[in-house]
């Protein structure tokens, strides 16, 4: 299908017809050189290219590499960077999750499992909030869907582990009602009785700690 000759003619005719067609810009034609002219212009183009690369070589300030992990102290991720789902706990240690399960419904690939239970009054409370990091696509649908802003995506990216089971995270630090429900109880001691501490795990196991039970199953 190499219709070179006929295409050239057809294309030149088309070019003449389209020259000045509004809204388009045509590719420029090739410059023709003789033998000596071709050698010199070729050499010139090569030298110009070499000048560009030499410019970068002679300016070490143009180096864009960042030496990680030496730069950890000054490394800041963008605030919206989506890489680690967390459940923020306020200064009293309360989270906002009411175990409504909307995030679980919004997640496209079942990376979230909300294990709920019932408190003394029969209301729904959160027992265990399990997030499968190995399945999550970080699409942010859960965060968008949550009506209580109980979960958020942070920029923690250092989550590499050697065992796949350690990628199932448990995000809540206690099993119990949400912060807004707890605020209604005036007595702090009463409040603490409602918050049953549970093992939260959301990251690598540090040396000296015992690894948690792989959650989710």
């Amino acid at each position, binding site marked *: 299908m190499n219709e070179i000759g006929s295409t050239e003619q057809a294309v030149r005719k088309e070019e003449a017809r389209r020259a000045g067609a509004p809204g388009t810009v045509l590719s420029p034609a090739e410059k023709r050189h003789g033998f000596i002219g071709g050698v010199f212009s070729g050499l010139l183009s090569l030298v110009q290219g070499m000048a560009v690369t030499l410019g*970068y070589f002679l300016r070490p300030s143009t180096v864009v590499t960042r*030496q990680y992990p030496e730069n950890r102290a000054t490394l800041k991720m963008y605030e919206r960077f989506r890489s680690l789902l967390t459940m923020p706990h306020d200064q009293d240690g309360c989270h906002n999750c009411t175990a409504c399960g909307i995030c679980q419904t919004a997640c496209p690939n079942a990376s979230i499992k909300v294990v709920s239970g019932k408190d003394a009054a029969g209301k729904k409370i959160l027992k265990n909030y399990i997030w499968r990091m190995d399945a999550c696509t970080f699409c942010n649908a859960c965060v968008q869907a949550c009506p209580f802003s109980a979960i958020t995506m942070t920029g923690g990216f250092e989550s590499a582990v050697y065992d796949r089971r350690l990628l199932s995270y448990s995000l809540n630090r206690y099993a119990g009602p949400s912060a807004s429900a707890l605020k209604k109880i005036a007595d702090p001691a009463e409040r603490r009785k409602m918050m049953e501490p549970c093992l939260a795990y959301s990251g690598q196991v540090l040396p000296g700690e015992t690894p948690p039970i792989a959650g989710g199953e």
Partner: protein
Amino acid sequence: MTNAIGTTLWQVKTLADRTTGAMPDSPWLAIGYILLGVVAVGALVAGLGLVLIYAERKIAAHFQCRLGPMRVGWHGIFQTVADTLKLLLKEDVIPERADKLLHLMAPFLSLLATVMVLVVIPYSPVLQIADVNIGVLYVSAVGGFGILGILVAGWSSNNKWSMLGAMRAGAQIISYEISVTIALLTVVLFAGTLQLSQIVLSQAEGWWIWRAHGIGLVAFLIFLIASVAEINRTPFDIAEGESELTGGFHTEYSGMRFAFFFLSEFVNMFVAAAVTATLFLGGWMPFHIGSFQAFNSIMDLIPPAIWFAGKTGFLIFVIMWFRWTFPRMRVDQLMKLEWKILLPIGLVNLAAASIAVLFNLYFFPRH
């Protein structure tokens, strides 16, 4: 010792001279000299590998706005050592239906040609292993040996990609040898001798690159371009064109024998730069301008070995600069460059050189 116009002349004494000198009196000393030569060449090859591979990676990195090796040693100076250890420990794979003997032999053929040329290069008046009186002819002939390694590697791998790479390399190297030789001949005409040390001495009044009214410059450019093509470096690396043929002729090599190909490429680069420096930039001869004795004496203060290292280093940098700037040429364009551009220009240049020699038309003419 000075010559008629007051320029210092050096006494050239090679290792071969010392050996022949010692032979009648004490053959053991002669054998000692030979062994010293062997060890020196081995050390030079190893040292060049270590330094040049690291330099290539760092220079490439800085051309590309990045840093290169930084972890192994201060700023990565031991990176090549780490790589060599890794390659030594790798499994040596020979493809199933490959020609075993040829497959084993090919890397050594490549290295052999390079090492044989290393032996005759004048590094300094007293640092030369052998000074053959047909030096230039020897370099040209033995340098052409390297193609055997590539062809054998490509054939014996039993892999179509390797064959393609090897065939391309064969055509390329044979063609560019012609341009190399013609540019070489220009210098031989000027210097009047084939012996490498004499060629260096003939540049005592000025290097041939600038001494011959542009004929030397054109010959230098042709020689440099053709040498880069001889050693299979971008823009002429179709033989191993990574983005096309995966690995070209060395696809099926792993471990230490791949390292030998890799090493021979870098030592080849050094040899090409060294020969170019010897022929056109004066080798170990300092930068002299005719008979300006004061200037020449200042230039002589820097030892000749440093001059040689500096010139060769600069040319190696230029060759690396080519690699990291230009795309590669297609095989037929490569052939066209040689046969239709470099060869005619080279022949015209040779004719002009003969006229210049006949009428003593260059700066600081010889007497």
